[in-house]
C-alpha cells in the first residue's frame, strides 16, 4: 500500500474530470483546473497546492492508492504526488514540488549532507557539485569503469557526468572544476579511437585549466613498450595547461579492476573536497572519506543500471515521414536541429511533437526496448525508445525516420501490426497443453522440462530484440499478402527446437512451415542477414528450418528440386549448371511459359547484353530446351582437381 505525503496539480490541466471521478475525496475539478480539496490538506486551502502542503494525517495512507490511480489516469499527466517511504519521507516532504521535479535523476541519487558532518564539509557540499568523468575507450573497458566511477561519485555528494571524449569540445574542459579521465592505450602508445580527435584538438589549441582539478586512471598492458602512454599523455597535458593534479595518475595492467578501485577510493574523495570556488579543501579529506564510505557496496555491487553516457550535441537534418489518412496525403517534414548525441530517436520525436508539431504520431516506449516502437532510421530497423542518434548518424548528417516497413501505415510513424498479430495467432508459436513427457504439476498434469544446457541454447537461438522487427526486415513480405513472415516463422521454429514441445505440436508446426505461405515464401534471407546480429540469428534459424523440411519432404517441390539439382550439378563438375536448374525446376511447362512471357527471348536474343556475341544467343535457340533460359552452355567444363569437390560432397553430404 502506498502512502502519499502530498499531492498537487501542475499547469495545463484540461479539466476532464477523470481525477474527480476516481477520487472525489481529494480532487475537485473547477472550470480552470483540477484542485486539491481543503479537507485533506494541512493548510486548509482549495487550490492546485503548488506550495506543497502536506495531506492531513491518515488521508495519505487511506487514499494513497486511489490518488495514484487518479494520477496515472490523468491524460495530460499533471497530477503529481510524493510518497512517504522508509523514514526518509520527513525530509523529502519538506522539499517543494518544483524542486522535486527539477532534480536530475543522477543528482537525486547523490547523498545529501547528513546530520553530524562539520560545517566546513557542509559548506563544500553547497553549490556546484558536478564532476566530469571523461573516458577514452577502444573496447569498452574504460567506458565501463567510467560508469562504475560515476555511481561511486554520488556517495561523496557529487553529481557525475560521464563524458565520451568523442566529439568533446576541449574548450569545455576549462569550465569543469573536477575532472577524472579514464583512458586505455591503443596499439603502440596511441589514443583510443574515440579520444583521438580531442587529443589532436587540445594539442592544437588547449584551453587554460587554472580552475580545474583532475586525476587520471590509465589502462594498459605491460606486454607493450608504451605502457599506459595515453594516460600519461593526458596527465602531462592537463598539468601543462594549468590544471591541478588532485591525485597522481594510476596505472592499471590487464587486470585493471583492483588498481582502479585503489585509485577511485583516493581520487574521488579528494576531488569531492574541491569547493564551489575551485579550492581543494584537503583538510576535509578524512571526513569526506568517512562520509562516503558507508554506501560503497550498495551503490556499486548489484547495481546494473547503466549510467547515462553524455555525448556532445550534434547538428542534424531531420526528415520525418508524415501521413495523414483523412487527406490521404503523405510527405516529409524536414528541419535542421541540434540534439544531444546520447538522445534516443524517441527523445527526438517527443521534442518534435512538443516544440514543432503536436500532431506528430508515433508509438512511445519505456526506454528499455519496447517492441512496438519499431521505426526505420537511415535504413536501419530500430526500436525508437533505445536507439541513439549518435549511433545512427554523424554530426551534420541526415536522420531520416520512416515507419516500420512491412506493415500498413495508420498515421505518420504508427503502423498497423494486426496482420502480424493475426498470422502469429494463427501460427500459435506458444506451448500448448498437449500431453508431453516431463515432470508433473501438483494437479497431476505433465509439465515440460529441459536441462540448463538446452535452455541456454534455446535462449541463444532466439535472443532478439523484437520479433516484430524481424518481421519488418523481410523484403518479400510487402509483396506477398499471404506470406506469414519471418518474425512469425522464427517463433514457430524456436518452438520446434524447444524440448518441452509435444510431438503433436512439433509436427503441426513443421507442416505449417512447409505450406505455401511458410518458410519457402521468403525470397531472400540476405534481406534479414543485413540487420545485424538479430537478422543473422533469424536467417540462420529459418535456414535450419528449411534443412529439416527438405529432409522431411525428400526434396519435393520446386524448392527441393532447386537444392537437389544445384548440389548435383556442382558435384558433377565443380560449377553450377543453370541449364540443369531451369530444366529440372521449371520443367517443360515452365520453360514454355518463359518462351511465351518473353523471358527466353530477352535471354536468347541477347538484346539486353549490349552486343554480346550473337552466337551465344543462336546456340541457345538451336539447342532447346537448354538454350531457352539464358544458358549459353549445356555442359560445364570441370574445374581443375574436381575430384576434391566430389570428395567434399562425399565427406559431408552424400545425398547429392
Amino acid at each position, binding site marked *: 500500500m502506498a502512502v502519499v505525503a502530498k499531492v498537487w496539480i501542475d499547469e495545463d490541466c484540461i479539466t476532464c474530470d477523470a481525477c474527480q471521478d476516481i477520487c472525489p475525496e481529494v480532487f475537485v475539478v473547477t472550470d480552470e483546473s483540477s484542485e486539491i480539496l481543503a479537507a485533506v490538506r494541512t493548510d486548509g486551502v482549495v487550490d492546485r497546492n503548488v506550495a506543497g502542503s502536506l495531506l492531513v494525517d491518515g488521508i495519505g495512507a487511506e487514499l494513497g492508492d486511489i490518488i495514484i490511480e487518479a494520477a496515472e489516469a490523468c491524460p495530460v499527466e499533471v497530477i503529481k504526488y510524493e510518497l512517504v517511504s522508509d523514514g526518509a519521507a520527513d525530509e523529502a516532504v519538506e522539499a517543494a514540488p518544483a524542486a522535486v521535479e527539477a532534480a536530475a535523476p543522477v543528482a537525486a541519487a547523490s547523498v545529501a549532507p547528513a546530520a553530524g558532518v562539520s560545517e566546513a564539509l557542509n559548506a563544500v557540499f553547497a553549490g556546484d557539485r558536478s564532476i566530469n568523468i571523461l573516458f577514452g575507450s577502444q573496447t569498452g573497458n574504460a567506458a565501463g569503469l567510467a560508469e562504475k566511477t560515476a555511481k561511486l561519485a554520488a556517495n561523496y555528494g557529487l553529481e557525475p557526468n560521464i563524458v565520451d571524449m568523442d566529439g568533446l569540445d576541449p574548450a569545455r574542459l576549462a569550465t569543469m572544476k573536477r575532472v577524472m579521465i579514464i583512458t586505455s592505450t591503443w596499439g603502440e602508445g596511441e589514443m583510443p579511437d574515440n579520444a583521438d580527435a580531442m587529443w589532436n584538438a587540445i594539442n592544437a589549441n588547449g584551453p587554460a585549466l587554472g580552475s580545474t582539478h583532475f586525476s587520471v586512471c590509465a589502462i594498459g598492458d605491460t606486454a607493450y613498450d608504451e605502457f599506459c602512454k595515453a594516460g600519461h599523455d593526458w596527465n602531462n597535458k592537463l598539468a601543462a595547461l594549468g590544471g591541478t593534479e588532485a591525485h597522481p595518475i594510476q596505472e592499471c595492467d590487464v587486470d585493471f579492476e583492483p588498481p582502479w578501485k585503489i585509485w577511485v577510493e583516493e581520487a574521488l574523495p579528494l576531488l569531492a573536497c574541491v569547493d564551489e570556488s575551485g579550492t581543494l579543501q584537503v583538510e576535509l579529506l578524512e571526513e569526506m572519506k568517512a562520509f562516503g564510505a558507508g554506501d560503497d557496496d550498495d551503490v556499486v555491487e548489484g547495481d546494473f543500471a547503466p549510467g547515462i553516457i553524455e555525448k556532445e550535441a550534434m547538428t542534424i537534418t531531420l526528415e520525418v515521414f508524415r501521413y495523414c489518412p483523412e487527406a490521404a496525403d503523405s510527405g516529409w517534414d524536414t528541419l535542421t536541429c541540434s540534439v544531444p548525441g546520447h538522445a534516443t530517436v524517441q527523445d527526438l520525436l517527443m521534442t518534435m511533437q512538443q516544440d514543432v508539431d503536436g500532431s506528430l504520431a508515433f508509438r512511445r516506449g519505456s526506454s528499455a526496448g519496447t517492441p512496438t516502437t519499431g521505426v526505420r532510421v537511415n*535504413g*536501419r530497423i530500430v526500436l525508437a525508445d533505445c536507439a541513439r542518434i549518435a549511433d545512427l548518424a554523424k554530426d551534420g548528417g541526415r536522420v531520416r525516420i520512416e515507419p516500420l516497413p512491412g506493415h500498413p501505415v495508420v498515421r505518420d510513424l504508427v503502423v498497423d501490426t494486426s496482420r502480424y498479430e493475426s498470422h502469429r495467432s494463427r501460427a500459435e508459436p506458444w506451448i500448448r497443453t498437449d500431453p508431453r513427457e516431463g515432470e508433473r504439476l501438483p494437479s497431476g498434469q505433465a509439465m515440460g522440462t529441459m536441462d540448463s544446457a538446452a535452455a541456454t541454447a534455446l535462449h541463444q537461438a532466439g535472443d532478439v530484440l523484437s520479433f516484430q522487427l524481424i518481421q519488418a526486415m523481410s*523484403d*518479400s513480405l510487402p*509483396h*506477398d499478402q499471404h*506470406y506469414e513472415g519471418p518474425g512469425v516463422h522464427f517463433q514457430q521454429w524456436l518452438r520446434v527446437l524447444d524440448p518441452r514441445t509435444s510431438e503433436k505440436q512439433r509436427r503441426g508446426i513443421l507442416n505449417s512451415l512447409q505450406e505455401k505461405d511458410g518458410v519457402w*515464401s521468403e*525470397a*531472400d534471407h*540476405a*534481406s534479414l*542477414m*543485413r*540487420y*545485424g546480429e538479430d537478422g543473422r540469428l533469424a536467417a540462420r534459424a529459418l*535456414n535450419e528450418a528449411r*534443412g529439416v523440411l*527438405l529432409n522431411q519432404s525428400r526434396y519435393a517441390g*520446386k*524448392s527441393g528440386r*532447386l*537444392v537437389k539439382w544445384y*548440389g548435383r550439378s*556442382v558435384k558433377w563438375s*565443380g*560449377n*553450377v*549448371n*543453370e541449364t540443369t*536448374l*531451369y530444366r529440372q*525446376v*521449371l520443367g517443360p511447362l515452365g520453360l514454355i511459359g518463359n518462351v511465351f*512471357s*518473353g*523471358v527466353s527471348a*530477352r*535471354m536468347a536474343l541477347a538484346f*539486353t547484353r*549490349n*552486343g*554480346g*556475341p550473337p552466337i551465344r544467343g543462336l546456340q541457345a535457340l538451336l539447342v532447346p530446351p537448354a538454350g531457352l533460359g*539464358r*544458358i*549459353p552452355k549445356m555442359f560445364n567444363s570441370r*574445374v*581443375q*582437381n*574436381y575430384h*576434391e569437390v566430389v*570428395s*567434399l*560432397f562425399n*565427406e*559431408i*553430404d552424400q*545425398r*547429392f
Partner: protein
Amino acid sequence: MAKVAYYPGNVARAGAAEVEDCIQPLCRALNIQLVEIPRASSDGGNVIKQATPKLQDALVARNLALAEAQGLDVMTTCATSHAIMCNTAQDMERDPVYASTVNNLVARTSKVEFTGEIQSWHLLHYLVEEIGLDKIRNAVKNPLKMNIAGYYGPDMQREGACAGDDPFMPTYMEQLIEALGGTPIDYDSKCMSVGSTSMLTLEDSSLAMTAAVLSDAIQSGADLVVSACTVSHVNLDSYQSKAGRVSGKNTKVPVCHLSEIVAFALGFYPDRLAQLRTRVRLIGS
C-alpha cells in the same frame, strides 16, 4: 601493379558472359593483375546451404584457402558470391571449433586450409578503396553522360561485407558513377532484394520485388540501372518485361552490370557503349 585472385562467381562464365568480357580489359587498364584460381568451385550460391550449411562453408573455405595459398585477396564481380565468402570467413572466425571442423575437411580433400589471412573484395569496393577514384577518373576515355541508378542489393550491404561504405545508405557506386562521367541517381530501393535466388521457385514474389526496384529507379530519373550483382542482374534484365506486366508498373529500363559500364567508360567496346546510348535515348529497355 595490384594483384588479386579472381573469383568469377557462379554465372560470369556461364549465362552472364558480358561480365567476363568486361572484367579482364578493365582490370588491365587499371593495372590490376587478375590471378586465376583454376581449382575454385561454385560457392553453393546459398542454395546448397539450405540442405547442408557445412558443405557450402567447406566449398567456400576451399576457394578462399586456394587464394590464400597464393597469398592473394579474392575479388569477385558478384555481390552474392562476395557476401557468401564474407559470411563463411566470419562464421569461421567467430567459432574456432567450427572453423577447425571445416578446415579438417578441406585439408583432407584438397590439402589446403583457410586461416583467415586474406579477405574477399567486391569489384566495387576494390575499385573505390584499393585503386582510387582519382585514378579511375583519370583513366576515363568515354564519359558515360547518362543518369545511372546503382543497384547494390542486400547481400553485401551489411557490416563486414561492404568495406568502408555505409551498409544502409551506401554511396560507393554513386561516387564511381560520377568518376566515370555519369550522373548518379539516388533512390530508396537500391539495397532491396529482387529475390534473385528464388526466381525459379518463387516467381510471383521475385517479379514483384524486381518491379518495385526498377520502377523506383525509373521514377527517380534513371536512364540506366547498373547492378553490382551478377545473379540479380538476371532478374533486373531478363525478367523485367514479365515483372512489368505482372505488377502493372513501368519497368522498362536498360540494365548493365557494373563491370560493363566501367569497361565502357575506360574505352573498351565503344560499339556496345554506342548501342547502349541508343537504347537509353531511343529504344528503351
